[in-house]
């Protein structure tokens, strides 16, 4: 009897494992830079790392925060949080997950010697202490309520101390070890990254046996590969391709509003942008709806608030500045510029931004505002706007934690001028106050109220021309099931089924 049972079980296991042997091929517009979360903070890398690593807290697709590697947490006092780690979790190299790994990871992220681009995410941490193998305490410098959303970001993925120390400079390219649903197999630069199923994953069953990421820079070709079935998923399709593929029965388009806002900023230190009437006038002078339609072609929605509506704390009820050139002319005249003025708009060579610059130039030209377009190389762009050398500039901001604190603080607080994020050099004492209150207030209702008021002031004072919140259109072959796109762009692939 026992033998028959054993045979049945073995047979069952054989069946289940062999039935689930399929590869999911994903194409994106660029290759990953590194698979070390402390080395880079770019989207293509994060999308791959999402499959390999886990974070203490998990931010689901609906932006709810649920336990990840930390199965529970408690706030011991105003500045101290205690995290209890899940037991029995192992890294891909067989090492068990320990609190020391968490301490190692967060310390390394914070260490100036690491020069991690995402270090700014954890500047609120004062110290990380190991209590026991499965318990770790995090103390903050000041009460910081958004902490949990920060600990859900892929940049805070938990690394294995042993693996990282042993690999040295080769970590992230040759050696990649995480606790996630997929293990790193190989990386042929600019060609493919291959990941294989981690059968011991704590988070559930990993359905695909393999995931392959392919970088295909040309958008048109990405769409073609999807059409011919050479790939299963394409992240980010060109707008016209997406529109055309919607009609294709073999393809499904998965649309998701992202956490990214795009805006045109005014350098309020430089006249005439120090006059709010001028800023409001320009807001009325640009036909944003047409920009959305013609430039983004359906891959964006008009922004009314400075943060995406998917972000916690976003103001749902702000009125957009209506397109009204007459009103704009009036305001300009009131501000003392009836005949317009000369100015410039800066951008980097991002094709969408350049198109926006051209439209702005044309439309402001009708008001007598002579706008020169200045295209800068990305590094120079960031440096020079940080130094306040610009007049107007086009930029985007991704509220990666989906929390209003991240979306507003760096952009509008008086302590964040320049590189940290506030390139308009605008500030307002009440907004400062509200933002400081917001990050320390644990009552979500009260927090929301603070952020709503702050956004109302920002909206009225218009240090920005609010443009759009982008939507991402991902293409999938119709036989792929289970794909739920994440607003942050780090889509999870472990539950995909291929029919």
């Amino acid at each position, binding site marked *: 009897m026992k033998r028959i049972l054993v045979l049945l079980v073995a047979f069952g296991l054989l069946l289940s494992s062999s039935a689930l042997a399929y590869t999911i091929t994903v194409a994106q517009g660029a290759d990953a830079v590194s698979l070390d979360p402390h080395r880079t903070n770019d989207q293509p890398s994060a999308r791959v790392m999402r499959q390999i690593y886990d974070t203490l807290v998990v931010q689901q697709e609906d932006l709810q925060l649920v336990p990840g590697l930390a199965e529970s947490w408690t706030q011991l006092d105003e500045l101290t949080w205690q995290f209890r780690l899940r037991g029995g979790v192992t890294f891909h190299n067989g090492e068990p997950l320990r609190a020391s790994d968490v301490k190692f990871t967060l310390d390394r992220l914070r260490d100036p010697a690491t020069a991690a681009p995402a270090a700014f995410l954890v500047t609120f941490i004062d110290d990380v202490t190991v209590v026991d193998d499965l318990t770790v305490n995090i103390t903050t410098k000041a009460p910081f309520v958004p902490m949990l959303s920060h600990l859900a970001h892929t940049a805070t993925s938990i690394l294995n101390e042993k693996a990282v120390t042993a690999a040295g400079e080769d970590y992230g390219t040759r050696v990649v070890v995480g606790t996630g649903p997929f293990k790193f197999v190989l990386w042929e630069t600019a060609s493919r990254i291959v990941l294989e199923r981690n059968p011991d994953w704590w988070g559930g069953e990993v359905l695909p046996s393999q995931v392959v990421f392919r970088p295909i820079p040309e958008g*048109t070709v990405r769409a073609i590969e999807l059409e011919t079935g050479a790939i299963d998923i394409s992240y980010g399709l060109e707008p*016209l391709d997406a529109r055309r593929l919607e009609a294709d029965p073999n393809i499904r388009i998965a649309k998701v509003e992202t956490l990214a806002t795009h805006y045109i900023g005014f350098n309020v230190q430089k006249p005439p942008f120090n006059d709010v009437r001028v800023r409001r006038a320009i807001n009325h002078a640009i036909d944003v709806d*047409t920009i959305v339609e*013609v430039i983004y072609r359906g891959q964006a929605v008009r922004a009314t608030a400075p943060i995406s509506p998917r972000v916690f704390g976003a103001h749902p009820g702000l009125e957009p500045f209506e397109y009204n050139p007459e009103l704009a002319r009036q305001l300009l005249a009131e501000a003392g510029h009836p005949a317009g003025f000369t100015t410039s708009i800066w951008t980097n*060579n991002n*094709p969408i931004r350049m198109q926006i610059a*051209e*439209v702005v130039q*044309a439309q402001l030209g009708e008001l007598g505002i002579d706008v020169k377009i200045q295209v800068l*190389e990305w590094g120079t762009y960031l440096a020079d706007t940080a130094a306040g050398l610009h007049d107007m500039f086009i930029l985007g901001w991704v509220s990666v934690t989906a929390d209003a604190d991240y979306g507003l603080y760096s952009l509008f607080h008086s302590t964040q001028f320049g590189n940290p994020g506030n390139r308009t050099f605008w500030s307002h004492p009440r907004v400062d106050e509200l933002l400081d209150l917001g990050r320390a207030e644990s009552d979500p209702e009260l927090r929301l109220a603070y952020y709503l008021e702050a956004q109302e002031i920002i909206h009225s004072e218009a240090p920005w021309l609010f443009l759009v919140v982008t939507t991402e259109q991902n293409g999938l072959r119709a036989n792929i099931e289970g794909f739920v796109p994440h607003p942050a762009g780090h889509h999870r692939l472990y539950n995909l089924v291929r029919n």
Partner: protein
Amino acid sequence: MSSAAAVIGASPRRKMWRALRRNPRVVLGALVLAVLVLAAVFADQLSPYPPNRQNLRNSLSPPGAEHLLGTDQFGRDVLSRIIHGGRVSLQVGFISVGIALLIGGLMGLLAGYYGGRLDSALMWIVDVLLALPAFLLALAIVAALGPSLVNVMIAVGIAFIPVFARVTRAAVLTVREQDYVAAAQAAGSSDLRIMFKHVVPNALSPVIVQVTLALAGAILSAAGLSFLGLGAQPPTAEWGSMLSTARPFIRDAHWAVTFPGLAIVITVLALNMVGDGLRDALDPRRKDA
């Protein structure tokens, strides 16, 4: 031209013109170029619309009565932008080739005339420039100096220096051995005078061939660099950047891509046909087949 050569029968010049006129490729090419130059000079008068006038509601409309070649994503008239783009391309071509000719020609002239260590030194520079593929060199220069049409002209100009240095040097070497040069030297003419009175005019023919071919190459390189976003900046109409910005629309509004592409093909083809024909006609070994 030396008096000795003028005496010897139907001058090479006359022969050359005859050969050129009989070559239909050259004639056609020259005609096309003439049209191009005219269009570039009279761009403003010939364009039905201002090249940068946007009409967002009319974005990506197909070729029709109102817009002969259709409109691009901003609703700008493609035909007008192509005409103005021709002006830009010719400007870029002439200036960059001009730079290459001036610097390279001078280098070749000096190297060929004086020989010796100067020759070795100058040719070493040329070899170094040749070791770096022209496009890579141009790419790096533009990336370092920043994206702009002017930097593209400089970069492409520098990349073409070796071509002119070598051609002028070779031509100078053949001329240098001639009797009349030795005679002039013996008579006490200054080097400079000899160079410009005797050497340069005789080196002219191969150089002209190279100029035409280099123009074609320069326009192609500039279009390629603009395609990568390193050249013409918005809203300047330039064929390469027009091609680049319209590429996401190639499957649904191909005219925004096809017509600038065609413009490039026709121009570069015409230049190559003329240059090629010139090279054939000037080839001293050529026998009338």
